[in-house]
């Protein structure tokens, strides 16, 4: 076993000792990852996992480094890029990934990627045509 692997085992025993907590956050992450296009509701999630909403947010952030909401937004933006590149309209994409307003989708998209969804779509489509 390498020095690195030994260190991983040592650190795991300290940082990831609480299996119940880990299973809870993994369950939440998987739920968000597969249901990102729905109205993901933390009250419901905490109910399923039998923990309070605020405790759930804290736990998620502790293990993943970001809040469930931030994770959800990243997931939606990532998926929206696929839709736009495949030619879906900006409006269609917005609702397909679970956003409820074009305005908030566009501004979030621009903040995360540097381009507006319309511009991103145009660039991707012209690239796939020239390729």
């Amino acid at each position, binding site marked *: 076993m*390498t*020095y*690195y*692997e030994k260190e*991983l085992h040592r*650190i*795991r025993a300290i*940082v*990831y000792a609480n299996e119940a907590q*880990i299973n809870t*956050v*993994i369950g939440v*992450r*998987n739920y968000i990852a597969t249901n990102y296009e729905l109205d993901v509701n933390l009250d419901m999630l905490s109910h399923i996992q039998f923990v309070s909403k605020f405790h759930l947010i804290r736990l998620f952030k502790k*293990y*993943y480094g970001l809040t469930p909401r931030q994770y959800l937004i990243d997931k939606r933006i990532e998926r929206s890029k696929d839709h736009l590149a495949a030619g879906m309209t900006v409006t269609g994409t917005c609702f397909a990934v679970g956003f409820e307003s074009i305005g908030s989708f566009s501004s979030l998209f621009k903040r995360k990627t540097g381009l507006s969804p319309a511009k991103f779509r145009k660039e991707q489509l012209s690239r796939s045509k020239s390729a």
Partner: protein
Amino acid sequence: MKVTLISIPVRDQEKALKFYTEKLGFLKKKDVPLEGGNRWITLVSKEAQDGPELLLEPAPLHFEPSKVYQEALMEAGIPYTQFDVSNLDAEYERLTKNGVEFSMKPTVMGTVKVAVFNDTCGNNMQLVEEL
């Protein structure tokens, strides 16, 4: 400022280019001849061709401390950097079949699963799947 480039020190650029494209599946993006037979070679991942580029840099051949550092990491089994995969077990099986050598098999570390392989150019590399 933007993050666009991740440099990987390699002992043999041509061999690295082959390994990273043929075995791992990255795509060559740039290949610019420089002095003394050195090249500026960058790669992108198939899924994110607009994403950050990997630079295959012949640093260990020209700068002794780079070689010393690389050797020490290799000896300790410490990965130089890591790549994301969506299914680590499948990737592990595919690469093993392709003759890639792993110093650490897929191992769960809390909310991620990781494995470490030898890139045959002087580095250990880690694959990580978020759970």
